[in-house]
Every structure is written in C-alpha cells, then in structure tokens.
C-alpha cells in the first residue's frame, strides 16, 4: 500500500504566506540560523549589557566567529532585515533596483526557555519589512489586514497597542479579530494577540546604510507556529517538531 504524502503543516502555512505576500511584491529573504551577535543584536539597536537583551533568552554557540563576534542561534528573524537591507543598498548602488523594500522572512528561530504546550525552544517566525518614502503605521495596518484576511478568511480588524522592541520606534503590539460569516468559528469574534511590530528604528536604517531622513517603514514579527495553532487548532506546538506522522498525516 503506497502511502499518501503530506506536507508538514508549517510548510503549508509558509507556502500560503509566500503566495499572499509575493502578490504584493514582498521578496522571500533568508539568512543563517547560526548568527553573530552583531546581526542578532547590535545592528538591531539592542545594546550590550542592557535589560532589553533579556527579552529574548539566547543560546550561545561554542565556536569562534572569524570576526571575533560571539555566535548565537538567532533569537528572531530580524537579523535578516539588516542583511537584506545591506544587500539591497549595495545592489542599488550598482544600479540594480530601487525602493521600495518589501521583504518577508519566514525562518526558524531559537529561544533558550522552558518548553510547554505553547512554547518551543525552536520555532518558526515570520518577519515582514517595508521601507519607502512616507510609509506609515497606516500601511502596516492595511498590510496586516490584507494578510490575515487571505490566510484565515472573514473580515479582519487589527488593533494596535503600544509596545517596545529595540529595533522599532514606535513599537506596537498587534491584536486581530475575525468577524463575519466566513470567519472560522474557532477564531471568530474575539481579540487575539498575534504579534509585535513597529516603525523601523532610525538607528537600524542608518546602520544598514539607509538615510532615515528620507526613508521610513514598518517591520513586524510573528510566530508561524502560532498561526498554525490558530488555523488548524493544534493543541501543542511541540508536536510540530517530534517527527510524528500522526500529526503530519492530517495535513
């Protein structure tokens, strides 16, 4: 009996994410999972020996970076923002392409924290970045509403609250609510805290060679595992990483 093949649920979601964002012209960017503290923290305006580094418990790797940097397992996909912006500015200087920057980064990240049904030490994150002249929180709101509607169905409301992430200013927490007949019953009519976002910090832009007096934009980051939990109702995020076909075969 030849079995039926199944994609991993997170691959399904990443496939959908890419389809939705590619239509808007967002490039799928990626970068290393083993990252220098320079890209994981410094270039993202997370100072050394500062309490904001505590926001993300970090795995440090026993190996010498050629540049003498400490090496970590990336705690977020945000370092790829910087890597992409640097590459973009280099190519732009060579006459290849111009603003806007529109990027998504679906990728695996690591946090050194105890695991339970809602936390894994490894999980997937989706980063989004858009930089151009005059990009505002309004564009962030519009983009997220479009994305959530495409992924979940139904009418989407997005609610923003103040928050803090060192690489954005202002920093925002994003809640989402799905309403209407098309909204999936398990998510309908309630506010769900879904991700962090904000307007890219001028130091981050400057560090990547972009003039923050001219260009500005938004960034967001959310857990893909969490999107999968919401969309499919999987009750334990650890099930995504245990190689059990009793999970995968349902997708």
């Amino acid at each position, binding site marked *: 009996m030849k079995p039926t093949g199944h*994609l991993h649920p997170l691959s399904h979601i990443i496939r959908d994410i890419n389809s939705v964002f590619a239509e808007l*012209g967002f490039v799928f960017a990626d970068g*290393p999972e083993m990252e220098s503290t320079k890209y994981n923290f410094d270039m993202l305006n997370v100072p050394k020996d500062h309490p904001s580094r505590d926001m993300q418990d970090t795995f440090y790797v026993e190996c010498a970076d050629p540049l003498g940097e400490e090496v970590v397992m990336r705690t977020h996909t945000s370092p790829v923002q910087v890597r992409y912006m640097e590459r973009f500015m280099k190519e732009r200087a060579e006459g290849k392409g111009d603003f806007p920057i529109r990027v998504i980064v679906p990728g695996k990240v690591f946090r050194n924290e105890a695991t339970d049904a809602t936390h894994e030490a490894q999980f997937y994150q989706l980063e989004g970045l858009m930089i151009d002249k005059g990009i505002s929180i309004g564009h962030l709101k519009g983009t997220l509403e479009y994305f959530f509607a495409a992924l979940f169905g139904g009418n989407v409301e997005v609610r923003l609250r103040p928050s803090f992430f060192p690489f954005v200013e202002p920093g925002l927490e994003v809640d989402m609510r799905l309403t209407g007949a098309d909204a999936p019953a398990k998510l309908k009519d309630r506010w769900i805290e879904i991700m962090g976002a904000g307007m890219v910090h001028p130091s981050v832009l400057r560090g990547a060679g972009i003039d923050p007096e001219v260009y500005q934009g938004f960034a967001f980051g959310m857990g893909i595992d969490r999107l999968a939990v919401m969309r499919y109702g999987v009750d334990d995020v650890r099930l995504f990483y245990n190689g059990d*076909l009793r999970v995968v075969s349902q997708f």
Partner: protein
Amino acid sequence: MKVSYKHLQDLFGGKLPSPDAVSDALTFHAWEIEEMTKVGDDTVLDVKVLPDKSAWALSHRGIAKDLSAILNIPLFHDPLAEKPVLEPISKELSVRVDTPGCRVYSAALIRGVTIGPSPAWLKEGLEALGQRSINNVVDMTNFIMFGLGQPLHAFDAGKLSKLSIAVRAAKEGEVITTLTGETYTLLAKDTLIVDGGDDTPLGIAGIKGGKHAEVDIQTVDIIIESANFDPRATRLSSQRLRLRTDASTRYENGVVPELSYFGITIAVQLITKFCGGTLEGYATTPYTSRAPEKVSVALPKINSVLGLSLSSTDVESILKRFGFVCEVVGDSFVVTSPFERPDLVIAEDLIEEIGRIYGYEHVPSIKIEPIPLREVNKRFYYAEAVRDALVAQGFSEIFTSSFRNEDEVKLKNALASDKEYLRSSKGIVENMKEALAKNAPQADLFGTDQIRIFEFGKVFEESGEREVLVLGVQSKQGYVAKKDKKVLDTALEAVQGVLTGAKGDGADGEPFSIDFTAALETLPQPTAYTTHKKTPDVTYKPFSNYPYLTRDIAFWTPVGTSAADAEKVIRENAGALATRIDMFDRFLKEERVSYGFRIVFQSYEKTLDGIEADALMHTVSDAVRANGWEVR
C-alpha cells in the same frame, strides 16, 4: 511591577476613574496590565512596564504621571515638581566615592529614631504589593522606592566605626554577608558600600544591604542612603551573583542620578514624621547633571510616521498633557526632556508619545498597491519543487529538533544535557532514523505498511551551516531491503529530477542526506514561483496515545460492487473505534470481485482488548453477509 490603585488615587487627589478604566487606559496607551487583584479595599495592578520606559515608570509616581497624560487629569501632587534642597549639610557625616560604579551618593543622618512596627497604612500598603513588613524605618525606605522609583537603604549609624560611608570597587574574593544572611564572594568589578573608617563592607552597591550595619530594634541613629549606581555595572554584578532585587532592577534600567536628591529629602521627611528622630544633616557627593535633552520633531514627520493628520494644536495639547516644556518653531516642536526621562532622545521617541496618547485606534489602514516581485527565492523555489515531487512519491515531511545529545557543534548554555549539541548532517540522519523507528510500528494508522519521510533542515558543522534534505524509508516490520531500497532509489531519482546532479550521502538502503545548499549552486535562477492553490483549512484532531489493533476482512462481491460500496458497509458497522478503513486488495476472478480491507481500531480512553475488536469484526462480517457477499 505591582501598583496599588489606592496609592495612585492619592497622587490624583481621588480624581481617578475606576480600576478597570485605569487598566484599559494603560493597556491601550502605555503598556500591558498582566493581572488585576483585589487586596482588601485596594486593587493591585500588575503593570508590565516596557523596558524603554523602565528608567522612570517602575514607580507609582511614574505610572501616575503617564496616566495623567493619557486621561488628561492633572496630578494632585507630583513629588518631582519641586527641586529638593539638601540642607542643612551634616557636620558629622561624610560620604566618599572612589569608583565610577557610583554616579552620585546622597545620605542623611537622623538621630533618635524609634524602631518599631510600621503604622497600619504602611504595612498594608507594602503587603498589597507583595512585600513583607520589617520595621517602620525599613518599610518606609521600601515604600518610597515603590512610590518614587529611587532605591534607598538605611544603616544603623551606631554600628559604624565612624560616621563615614565610602563606595569603592570590591577586592577580588572579598566576602559579604547580606541582610538575609547569605554570603557572596565578590570580584573587582563589583561595587561595595563600606564603613569609611574601618572599611567593613556594608552592602553590595545597588543590589542588597549587608548584615553588618542592619537596622534593628536597638537602633537609635540611622544613615539613609539614596544613591545612584551605574546601570551596566549593576546589571553585570546582579546577573553574576544571581541576585536580582527591586533596587538592582531600577538601577540597571537607568533610573536617573538626580532622583537621589528627591529620594533622600522625601525619606528624611517621612521617617522623621513616622519613626521619630531629627535630621542632623545631609551629605552628598558632587554630581553634574547632564544638560536637558532638546528633541525636535516636525509636524509632517509626525503625521507621515503615524499615518494621521494631526494639527499643530492637537500635537501641542498632547505634549502639554505630559507637562513637557515645548517650543514651537515653524512646523517643529522642540521639547525639553524632563530630567527623569532619559528615554526621550530622538524625534521618533516623541512621535511614539504623541501616537500612543492620541490613540492608535484612530490610524486608518492604508492598502498597499502590488508591485512586481523583485526576485524569486531560489532556495525556497527548489525546496518547494522537491516537496511536491516527494509528496507525489508518497513521502511525508517532518521537522525534527535542531538539538542533539552528541554531535560536532556545542552550545554554551543548553536547555538540557540531551540537547547540548546542534545537529550535523549525520545528526539529522540520526533524527530521521529515530523518526522512522517511531512511526514504522504504527504504519497502519497511515494506511500503509511502509513509512516514507523526508526533512529539509539546517545542519551545523565545524565548516559552518548548510541545508540538507534527508530521505528515509522503513517498512512496518523494520527495514526490508528489497522493498524499501527500491522506494528510496526511486525517490532519489524524483529529487534528481528537480535538483540535477544531486547525490545522496549515506550507506546503501539507509536514510541519507543530500547537500541541498551545494545542489542549488548549479541550478538556474527561477523567475517566477509555481502557483499553488491555498492549502486546506484542516482542523487538527488530537491522536490517541493508546495502542491500536488491526483486523483484516476479505469477501467476494458481485461484479459492479464498487470499493466505496464495500467500504460503506464496513464503516457503518465497525463502530466509532474504527479509526481507519483501508483497502489493501482487490481482484476479479470468475465473475466476482474480491475485496480486502484492513480496519484499524483505536480508543481515546483505553487499550483495546482483542476480544472487543473481534466482536466488532463479527458485526462487520454479519453485515457483509447480510448483503449477500461471501466472507472469505
């Protein structure tokens, strides 16, 4: 931080709306409230002050000040409104700082206090915040810390060799016993408060007081400390000593040195009022305040970042609610940051203050126009093509852990001893073997007798990081060379159909890896993604952890009986425990069709007994016969 609603209310002279309204105001305009608890006639809000605002908002005054801007209600009493005067200067007490670890050290000598229990309001006030009452003087210093954000400490002046306090770097290996009796061994990068006469350690600077000069029931004269310690040094010491206190949290978040003057004068005022005694005088070290930061932001920039159309008047009125000193120059606002707010440095800092007070709910969403895709991600494009090719071969995709118990690249701070290493290309193949071994015995659950799986994943080796693809096949009863190797070979061919020239790295018939990163190098850059339908909106069903049983049935049917017809009869009679019904055999012989079905029985509640499965099969057989079909 825990915040007492009653304490906030005092700062507003009773003008605050209900605790729920305060909680909502903070949630949507400042920071999250993690919890609200009724404590006696008070409500305690657990406020998650954001790191960038922790220099000034880890205090009732700071939170009240922000609420005042949010709700547009002035503070009834702002303890920071008037500049404190440290007079008289003490004739007896001296303070000396010999380390950059201390930015300013203010102290006061109070003679003749009466140590005793705290008044009820103070005791209850601290207990509401989860603090244990110790005695009136110590409680008062803590109360002021939670009120104002300035950590304070009280020493028993009678226990010092002379009325002198010094701050210096610790000596390597120097030992101190803290107030609660634990001993700590220090390094030269730690900072100590010591007796200025005989150099005895009195406290770990900014972190915790020592046992030596503890205030107790016999104490008569006290020295109050209101100092400021370097945020970075405090953080490093507190982390290394694994000693995080309310004081160290405030220092490492950069509470400003100027606050120490407020702390010391308020402490003198309240301690002499509630604990008796008289002030002999103050002593302080010189400190030059930084020049107030002037932050400028233009109206068009504010609107362009927030996506709003605020007028100049709107912005001015918001800045006024904060009480900021503000000049309007053309279309720009020049704000002088208040001394206690080191977080207001750049234009964006002000934009945030304006945005959150005005309310992000007023930002209209803007739809962005699609633009052509600048580039296709080559890695993702080919990985997707391989996924589709393998799924067509009956392979399923798994994700396994990036951590292993033994491998090449080690973590410095692993979660557990069996997760100390990152997987290498060999490690990920081991993960695959483990997954095969785990899934193979349950193959029936997937309607097969052979597990076929693959994984795309990063591996970490001394040479660096790369992505590999791993393939594995194993039959239910274990590896069957004849059957499993063929499937693996065919799968490799299917992969090679996408990744031209890709080679498997592994022993014959064993699970193997393909260096995906290397294989990509020779492939052409794709120009467009293959379009996919939106993937299905499956609702996941938790699986049973109990073992399952299988039963097979084969029967003859007349020609024209479809597999679906046959399956329907089984499904209707096998009961709810039948989790799968799979056809494994079908053939035509002498004008009849034979069907073979395998039924998987599994319960969510218990381990099934063979007798139960047999009884269910009995019902199924009877139903098959009732259709006129012959059970073989």
